[in-house]
């Protein structure tokens, strides 16, 4: 926010253009498979998941909102969305708390730190296997909101914690001291000083954890219980004839994400302009 657009534009060095081109290629690479998904989602009514195209239609977009022969997009999507949001909120809150805790040394801090690193490096399928076995042994029923939630959290916490480390290592404690000197309580200091400063990073943690959870397959495999999340459901659907409706789902997801991000960005820019006018 402190950075306003400079009046006189600095001339970009040549390396900028080369790197920008490289970045563009990278984005193109990321979207490469999306291109096939996009094209094939307009597959004709009798078309399949691969080329050749068999006509052109919007059939699969309509079909997306109908009931499938096998599987249930609506229910599993809602479940994945809910799970992703729960994971997101829990990760943000718990990582933030842990980040605060780690600003001081306490007994066992390195144990927790290495647990986080371990959690990051233990292959997902082992977490799945371990939790699945454990729940079986203690005779608990795996559910997406218990065992699968736990499995996902072991995945998102390390990221959250590492990001918090990065943030707090750079955080100048003199701001807080100043706040305390002015008579702010602990909670007020956090609310008015710390939170606004680490806010953008928390948004980063939120996005990261939602994305990781929403797309997680291996960790959910043995922990989801009776009801599937979206990735599991899609995988299950491939045991029968799947149709380009999967691609339509991809196209719609991407389009929808662009719209949401566009709106968010637009409103940020708008707010900023208003602020600028006021000042």
């Amino acid at each position, binding site marked *: 926010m402190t950075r306003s657009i400079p009046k006189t534009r600095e001339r970009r060095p040549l390396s900028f253009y080369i790197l920008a081109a490289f970045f563009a290629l990278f984005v193109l690479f990321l979207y490469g498979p999306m291109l096939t998904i996009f094209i094939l989602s307009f597959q004709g009514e009798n078309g399949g998941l*691969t080329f050749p195209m068999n006509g052109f239609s919007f059939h699969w977009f309509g079909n997306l909102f109908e009931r499938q*022969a096998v599987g249930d997009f609506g229910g599993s999507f809602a479940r994945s969305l809910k799970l992703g949001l729960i994971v997101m909120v829990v990760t943000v809150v718990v990582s933030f708390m842990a980040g605060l805790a780690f600003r001081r040394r306490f007994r066992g801090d390195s144990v927790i730190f290495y647990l986080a690193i371990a959690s990051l490096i233990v292959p997902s399928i082992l977490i799945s296997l371990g939790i699945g076995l454990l729940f*079986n042994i203690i005779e608990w*029923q795996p559910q997406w909101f218990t065992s699968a939630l736990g499995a996902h959290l072991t995945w998102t916490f390390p990221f959250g914690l590492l990001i918090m480390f990065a943030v707090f290592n750079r955080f100048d404690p003199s701001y807080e001291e100043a706040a305390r000197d002015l008579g702010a309580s602990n909670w007020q200091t956090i609310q008015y000083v710390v939170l606004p400063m680490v806010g953008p990073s928390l948004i980063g943690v939120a996005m990261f954890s939602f994305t990781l959870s929403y797309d997680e397959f291996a960790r959910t495999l043995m922990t989801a219980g*009776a009801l599937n999340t979206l990735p599991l459901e899609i995988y299950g*659907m491939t*045991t029968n004839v799947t149709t380009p409706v999967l691609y339509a789902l991809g196209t719609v997801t991407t389009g929808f994400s662009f719209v949401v991000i566009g709106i968010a960005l637009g409103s940020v820019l708008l707010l900023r302009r208003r602020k600028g006018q006021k000042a």
Partner: protein
Amino acid sequence: MTIDMKKSAKNLATDTGVSRRGFVKGAAAVTGAAIGSGAITGFPTIWAQNIKNVTLRQFGTGVSNINAVADKVKEDLGFTLQMTALDSDAVAQRAVTQPNSFDIADIEYWICKKVFPAGTMQPMDTTKLKNYDAISKLFITGKLTPDSEIAQGTAPHTVGFVEGADSVEFASAPTQWMTLIPTIYNADTLGIRPDLIDRPIDSWADLLDPAFKGKASILNIPSIGIMDAAMVCEAMGEVSYGDKGNMTKEEIDKTIAVMIDAKKAGQFRAFWKSFDESVNLMASGEVVIQSMWSPAVAAVRSKGIACKYQPLKEGYRAWGGGIGLAKHLSGLELEAAYEYIDWYLSGWVGAYLNRQGYYSAAPATAQKFMSEDEWGFWMEGKAAQGDILSPDGKVMEKAGAVRDGGSYEERMGSVACWNSVMDENKHMIRKWNEFIAA
């Protein structure tokens, strides 16, 4: 931590059988149990009201976990059936390790051989099933007709019955207690792209013909893949088997050695594990010859791409699936499950499955729900009079078409072996992994 899955599953069943779904349903189950103990006919209205509250959770592969069935159940029987589709590994896994996550398991017979002894399921009392007699003899005695030979492998009747209500020992002859009610089965063979292959294919050995180098595929589910591999090796004359369904270590080693050589020579383009992969491989032209399932062939063909389910002189590899009850089911839910199973055999689903190219386990009841033309095409090997439609109304075959392999008797009558679990299963899987890693 004394953990034998069998034991813990039993505890689970007794501890949580009733209260699992909360108080309201628990109460319904208690009522149901009282009714179920003998006086059902006396209280039809209570029955009808309670059963509407029942939700049965079924899981299985996408092959037969079809939403249309759940709709029809709601319509005909009034209760809710919740379907979860999984791949075949996950099916076995869930049946054994999460015995409370399902009420009805839709599994294949070779999986049943592994799963049922774990004690997470309960056998069904055949005397409670009105349609029991409609079940094909193939699943009772193993013989399609009284004089046919029993094929090798895990034939369904060998794991179809247990000795008693609490037994997990498979019975050698039919008893009153059935492990799975058979629902679906088929005879599998190689699928080919006749437009990309210019010579007739008539033997399993053709899968490893160097002419198809880089264009062949086999399925990577060890218990099924090994059978296809054995059909191939036997046809090539490379290996001779005592019983393909229960190979010796030596036979397994030889079979895998042949497959590894072929793989190293670049014969295979890919291995497939899910139904859909086989469709995509074939439709995209990545593969021109591969082991395949019947509806996968139909799926390729419905995209306007030529694909043939080629009958072979050595015969078919057959598989069968059925539905079974979770151990924890009791009371009203158990009654509803019986109701559902009986209904499953009563013909509507059978016709639905037949129209997909599978076979119904109770052919006679299915016939009542099919047109004469449909019956003629799918079951009797006759040329179609009019267009043959898939269950969801798409044209699958034009008038004049004849089913690959012909009639039910021709196809199911020339089964060489069933999908199976062998005594040397552990060894076989290790060797199979060597093949995949080679």
